[in-house]
């Protein structure tokens, strides 16, 4: 939860800014300096799709004391409408309501709070449509 890292990655977390390669046209998230598909450095920012489909999901039951009020929480692999796959928390629903293939949309939530006095890290999660 260092200020420079939180600041540098804010667009990635808030807006879902990844990359598109101008040589091979492949899209990737999270962003990298070099295209993971062809190794080109010719990449530019790309905003990932707002909606997607749930592929896999699991429930996290045990965490450290600092996250005790957030457990259990759900983590899922989401295939977005633009083909990008992201791993993120699934919120606004119970584990038993989840089904493979259900439609999800991006939402804006707290990812972590650094104690009572530190920074709050915000970013996207997904919720059922």
């Amino acid at each position, binding site marked *: 939860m260092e200020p420079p890292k939180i600041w540098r990655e*804010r*667009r990635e977390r*808030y*807006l879902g800014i990844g990359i598109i390669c101008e040589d091979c046209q492949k899209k990737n998230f999270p962003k990298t300096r070099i295209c993971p598909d062809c190794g080109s450095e010719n990449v530019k920012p790309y905003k990932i799709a707002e909606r997607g489909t749930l592929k896999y999901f699991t429930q996290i039951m045990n965490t450290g*004391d600092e996250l*005790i*009020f*957030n457990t259990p929480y759900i983590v899922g692999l989401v295939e977005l409408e633009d083909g990008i796959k992201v791993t993120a*928390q699934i*919120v*606004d629903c119970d584990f038993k309501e989840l089904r493979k293939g259900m439609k999800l949309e991006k*939402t*804006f*939530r*707290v*990812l972590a709070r650094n104690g009572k006095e530190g920074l*709050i890290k*915000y970013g996207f*999660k997904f919720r059922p449509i």
Partner: protein
Amino acid sequence: MSEKVGIIAYGIYIPRNRITVDEIASIWGEDANEIKSQLQIFEKSVPFPDEDVATMAVEAARNAMKQWGGEAEKIGAIYVGSESHPYAVKPTATIVAAAIGAEGETTAADLEFACKAGTAGMQMCFGLIQSNMIKVGLAIGSDSSQAKPKDPLEYTAGAGSAAFLIGKQDIIAELEGTYSYTSDTPDFWRREGATFPSHGQRFTGMPAYFDHIIKATKGLLEKIDRKPEDYDYVTFHQPNTKFPLRVAKMLGFSKEQIENSLACKYVGNTYSASSMIGFAKILDEAQPGDKVLVTSYGSGAGSDAFSFKITENIEKIRSRSKTVQYYIENKRNISYGLYSRYKGILKV
């Protein structure tokens, strides 16, 4: 008023959890039916632990942006009114700016005036636009209020957010006039560092809520030469259902004029967002040519009154984003146990 200015888009957000008055009353051995008949509130909204004033403000702002369809770079001012900002120092408005892609050339600030901080931001945007300092402004009211367990406020203190984009182009609700009334009235307060607010019990009624709303509303009607019967819709701050119904009657408005705006019955008092969500609910169904009067109230105390005329543009932007009714119906009820975990009342 010279050039036309008004609302160009709006969006709201209400968290999915609800706790009923019955559930809270059963914990404290109180008579739920008596409380419901007094307040005419049935349940209230409760945020998840990963929601706060900033996340709700972003959701409402994104709904407004979707309805508008314009570019975020055109927004020249962002104001977020709240009494429960996540940081004491570090503006919520900056987080909203980044989350809607409006960082850069824009002014931003957090406002605080109990439940009317959101309408204070609307008024500031109208002024900046009319003086040609900016083209588009974003005013948000967002609150996730705290109530001490067993305090009467525990039945009503809800959470929610409303965002209004204000400008000159493609106006959906044209501003006809605004009037404010302010006084130093100690009806409700929270000292720096205190977790829960304090209030003046019965003192919160007559000299506070009713006096300010009546003075601001009458002041506006006189200023623009209108009568209550000239309006199709009216809404006021909604700390419960009884107060806005009673103040409407005192001012000479009918139950029909106000009834449909009373979202508080199902989501509770959303503080800074309260009168703005009421206004959004009216915009969800208003027709071109309709006239709408909105008066907020913030403890401490003050009221902002606004008069709007709905334009034909309202039909173009409808169905582009979620309605107030969608959020009222998209809910799940929780127990007092889960509520106390979500609100941080439960300690480990």
